[in-house]
């Protein structure tokens, strides 16, 4: 019986013996990635020293720290946290990436998405590195283990395979594919498993879109998502890889917990209604709901294809009076490219508010909604209170639908503008 991509990677990093789904292993992460956030990094840095007497991490080049939340700072306390993080990284010799963009995206740009590598974070959205064949798992507070010893304890996950077929139609995007997967297989179908996505349908989805699909994997219950590296993904990763490790693919006869085939041909734009990410519907059935703000950005969306389609829709049009449209590119690199393509000027001329990358729009730290308000968003999540008041509402849609809603001030089918 063949092996899954996850089994192969975890075999390599747990000593080389052939491990299988269900085995308990001690796995050595190739990369330990975090962003500074109160209750996580500050606590980890303190506990390392005070509870374990560890002054320095072993092999600092395995670690990467991002400052992408609380950017820019709004209180002295936030700046103090950043200072502590900067000092810690300098002392430890750990690479610090500040204001480069949202870490999960910048990790890919900087080569932490090495195919065949094993990465851990506390935040589960790191799963998006799976688009390049990296096994990237969010451990929540258990990330502490990766700071105090070389290995982390892990149960080798089973894998559920999703085969995509068909091509997306105009105005339908990668995040619609993900939300559709949730709709078809359910929000718990991949519990504690790896969601492996492949099939001929994936050939038509950009690397950016693949990151979107993998990055949201947690809402199927998956601990992460992966895709077998292909010529397109290897062309991106080859010049960036940070470590020399063989790229691996699942064997054709690998053992899967389940296999689903999902056809994309007739897929329409999706809307995820509040109050949770399982609430997926066709957008066309929910037109006309009045919304006061729109957020195009986050680690899930906000990449070039998202900015391009928004600019295409908004070119020569205006954001409706009173509507707050925030367009926040996911990384500095993406922002620079968007600027050189003229996308930023198109969006700004249409009335969009745009800023340098930050995670802060996605969790309501800024652009905060008050009770009774509604937003369309390409953020990661639509639970109550995520973008402000618990009595505000978030409708997750693709980038095109955010742009279309901005024009009309209500949920709008973006396809009529394309």
């Amino acid at each position, binding site marked *: 019986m063949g092996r899954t991509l996850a089994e192969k990677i975890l075999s390599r990093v747990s000593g080389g013996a052939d491990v299988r789904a269900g085995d308990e292993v001690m796995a050595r992460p190739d990369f330990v990635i975090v962003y500074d956030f109160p209750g996580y990094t500050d606590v980890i840095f303190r506990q390392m020293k005070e509870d374990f007497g560890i002054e320095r991490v072993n092999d600092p080049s395995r670690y990467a720290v991002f400052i992408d939340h609380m950017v820019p700072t709004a209180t002295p306390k936030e700046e103090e946290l950043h200072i502590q993080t900067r000092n810690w990284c300098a002392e430890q010799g750990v690479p610090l990436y500040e204001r480069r963009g949202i870490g999960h995206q910048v990790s890919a740009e900087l080569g932490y998405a090495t195919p065949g590598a094993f990465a851990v974070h506390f935040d589960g959205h790191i799963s998006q590195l799976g688009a390049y064949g990296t096994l990237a798992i969010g451990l929540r507070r*258990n990330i502490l283990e990766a700071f*105090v010893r070389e290995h982390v*304890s892990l149960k080798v996950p089973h894998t559920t395979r999703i085969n995509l077929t068909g091509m997306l139609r105009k105005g339908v995007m990668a995040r619609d594919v993900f939300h559709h997967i949730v709709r078809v297989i359910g*929000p*718990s179908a991949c519990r504690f498993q790896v969601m492996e996505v492949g099939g001929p349908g994936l050939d038509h989805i950009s690397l950016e879109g693949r990151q979107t699909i993998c990055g949201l994997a947690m809402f199927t219950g998956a601990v992460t998502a992966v895709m077998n590296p292909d010529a397109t993904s290897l062309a991106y990763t080859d010049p960036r890889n940070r470590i020399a490790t063989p790229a691996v693919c699942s064997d054709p006869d690998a053992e899967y917990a389940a296999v689903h085939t999902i056809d994309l041909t007739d897929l329409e734009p999706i809307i995820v209604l509040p109050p949770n990410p399982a609430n997926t519907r066709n957008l066309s059935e929910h037109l006309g709901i009045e919304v006061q703000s729109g957020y195009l950005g986050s680690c899930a969306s906000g990449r070039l294809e998202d900015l391009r389609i928004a600019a295409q829709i908004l070119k020569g049009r205006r954001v409706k009076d009173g509507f707050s449209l925030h367009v926040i590119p996911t990384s500095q690199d993406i922002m620079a490219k968007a600027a050189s393509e003229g996308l930023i000027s198109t969006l700004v001329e249409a009335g969009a508010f745009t800023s340098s990358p930050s995670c802060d729009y996605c969790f309501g730290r800024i652009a905060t909604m008050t009770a009774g308000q509604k937003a369309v968003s390409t953020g990661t999540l639509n*639970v109550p209170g995520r973008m402000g008041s618990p009595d505000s509402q978030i409708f997750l849609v693709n980038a095109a639908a955010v742009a279309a809603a901005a024009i009309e001030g209500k949920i709008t089918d973006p396809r009529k503008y394309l």
Partner: protein
Amino acid sequence: MVLANLKGRVAWIFEEENFDVDLIVGVKNIKITDLAELSKAAMESYDPEFAAKVRPGDLIVGAGNFGYGHPHYPPLRALAHLGLRGVIAESFSPGFWRGEISMGTPLVSCPGIVAGVNRWDEVDVDWDAGIVRNLTQGTMLAFEPLSSADRLMVETGGLLPYLKAQMQTA
């Protein structure tokens, strides 16, 4: 060290699949850090008398994929403050599972539990036998065993004591 069996009454049954635990205290209260205050809000919208009715050792029962969404830590801390000892659910959402096990909260993944208990039934979780016994009804259900790391984490009281114990052994 031996993991003590759980014994208590079923203080509440969340029958909803994919239950968002933030609703236990209400999303508007999620940032309250004072446990006494937070626990006053706990279960308020389900049973206003909840705090007065529960006894130390009581348990919560949940349906499938319990803890879905974006689970925060305060709801379970509030329940623990009231004496609640753990959660038995049909199945758990991995993010919630990982977070709560690292806090040392006993979680029992037990298919059939929702249909197998009524509120205030007395139940017993036998870790070694892998069985939840309903002492009131005289029935029993098998549960999925904890991984050895998860079991040690619950046994030692959470991630920090677990890691300390591990490092000492090493």
